[in-house]
């Protein structure tokens, strides 16, 4: 006979703080400690089945759940923005299960869980980035077998990756990987930085923040401790370079941020705006004005500028 618990308000205490039980958190913390001790090395962990779907951030959620405490302030972004639907969903998960204090301000956050971006504002010592990782293995597209790629890492046998990059340059004149661009961590392990645009790769280099990576479906955790070398793979005669745009952000005028393209009509009209929504708002609040801010404001595409 089974006694079923209904998941309603009166039985909420049935779930532990931050959803995971303490044994599981301990297991994840052990994996995290190992990952920090061996930067860039993929540590297998007993990834739990979560109430959110695989591929939707279960790795990042487990890492956050294992490290979050009552004193933390959590920021969750997807595509650089705090209000994309899945970021909202994950933030609600921690508000519900961990009574988490949440913020959209990068500098107020102690934990930033992210999918596909690193915030534009520089990170500080004491902050923790938690990356959601779909495919932790940077060599997977070159070698499908896990048993093989683990050996390649063990022997630091990265020739295959160098050949792939070379072939890109030979065919297209440049490396055609635009996101999840492979990096060498601490001069030892080639690591997938998760599908952040290569624009963000330089932000990982010697970052004062702790960077944790969780791949739930693939059951791997890895890390980059603060002040660790993270070098994007390249060649002396073809140095690594990042994306650039011909125009600044249409809303805040930033010329040095990663821009999203927004299609505004069916006549080929485009506007380019910051992907980091908090960065863009902060700049507008500081009085920076992009070329199309007035139009966007009139169309209520941005919030009332009088109350930023």
């Amino acid at each position: 006979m089974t006694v079923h618990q209904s998941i309603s308000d009166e039985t909420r205490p049935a779930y532990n703080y931050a959803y995971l039980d303490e044994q599981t958190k301990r297991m994840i913390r052990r994996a995290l400690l190992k990952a920090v001790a061996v930067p860039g090395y993929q540590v297998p962990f007993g990834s739990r089945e979560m109430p959110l779907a695989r591929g939707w951030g279960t790795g990042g959620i487990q890492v956050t759940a294992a490290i979050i405490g009552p004193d933390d302030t959590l920021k969750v972004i997807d595509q650089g923005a705090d209000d994309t639907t899945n970021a909202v969903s994950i933030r609600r998960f921690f508000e519900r299960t961990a009574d988490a204090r949440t913020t959209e301000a990068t500098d107020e956050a102690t934990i930033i869980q992210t999918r596909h971006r690193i915030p534009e504002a520089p990170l500080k010592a004491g902050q923790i980035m938690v990356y959601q990782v779909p495919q932790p293995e940077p060599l997977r597209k070159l070698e499908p077998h896990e048993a093989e790629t683990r050996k390649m890492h063990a022997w630091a046998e990265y020739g295959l990756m160098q050949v792939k990059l070379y072939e890109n340059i030979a065919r297209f004149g440049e490396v055609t990987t635009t996101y999840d661009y492979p990096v060498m961590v601490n001069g030892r392990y080639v690591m997938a930085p998760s599908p952040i645009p290569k624009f963000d790769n330089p932000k990982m280099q010697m970052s004062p923040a702790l960077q944790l990576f969780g791949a739930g479906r693939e059951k791997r955790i890895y890390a980059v401790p603060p002040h660790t070398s993270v070098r994007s793979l390249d060649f002396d005669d073809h140095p690594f370079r990042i994306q650039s745009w011909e125009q600044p952000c249409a809303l805040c005028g930033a010329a040095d941020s990663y821009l999203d393209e927004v299609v505004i009509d069916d006549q080929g009209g485009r506007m380019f705006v910051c992907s980091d929504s908090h960065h863009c708002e902060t700049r507008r609040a500081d009085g920076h004005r992009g070329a199309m801010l007035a139009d966007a404001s009139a169309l209520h595409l941005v919030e009332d500028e009088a109350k930023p």
Partner: protein
Amino acid sequence: MYVAVKGGEAAILATHDLVAEARRGDESVPELAVAQIREQMGLACGRVMNEGSLYDPDLAALALKQAQGDAIEAAFLMRAYRTTLPRFGSSEPLDTAKMAIRRRISATYKDLPGGQVLGPTYDYTHRLFDFALMDEAASGEAQARPAAQPLDASMPRVPDILGAEGLMEEEAPPEGDPRPFDLTREPVTFPADRDVRLQAMARGDEGFMLGLGYSVQRGYGNTHPFVGEVRVGEVSVEYVPEELGFAVDLGDVTLTECQMVNQFAGSKEVPPQFTRGYGLSFGHSERKAMSMSLVDRALKAREFGEAATYPAQQDEFVLYHSDNVEAAGFVEHLKLPHYVDFQGELELIRRIRREREQRLADQPDEALPEAAE
């Protein structure tokens, strides 16, 4: 901030209401009771229990109701619940030789101790609609008459019969009979041992396992299987609480077990013998158990020194891709926004095309230069 992405929270809450409305359907039609699903959609509940890795017909029925009959979504609900349950111990090994048989057939012997027992099967139904079922009240009598004679008490398993003659691959537990691996608590490493493989396949997607098993039969893998036996029935689950020190009966589970008999030409060390493929699943689910037993044998390729050329013979391929809850999550995550990465691709392809056009304009007579020039 854009309207397009603003208001995510309100929109998410609204989708929950819309799902509830879609689930209920036309309110003039009576609502389904969970007990009705459990009793009248038993095969669907079996599938959800298998792929959700949790034996609980009531919860499986609830999951199906909540998921509008979507088997994978229902399995996901089961797993997300299962993962929160405390584990207080492992049962004693189940003895399927002592199964209370509902169905037991062998394709390798015309008759055998215990006999062939057809039991409830669709095998010999003609797939013609029974329009009488359209009428809710008409179904009335659905009682089968009991057989004239009771079944034999002893129903030995066919591989055991072959084993007695020494013709069957021996299967002994590994040294010390360790507790089986639990892939829901620990990460799998490769090559994966048989306990891990069987566990992964038992919770694997029925359709995927069926396709893989079929591929083995069609030539993508070289096994020549016979159904040694399929049996369906109830087996009791026993548990030894530490404080008691003797086994306590926890109740019965309905299981389907399939043992395939395969040829093996032998090698230098091993004489020619039959080898087995094993499948076990919750509920009455022969298709699943049979598919699993085909793939189990194919996955033994390494142990028998056979070339592992085809997908069904490769443990990484089978284990990683048979988990439908993981697969569905990752396939469907493509619905999430990817515009940051897509912007990177747009920037790249525009630039490469611009450079190409520039080059063609500079050298109108020449074809595109060769690589690395």
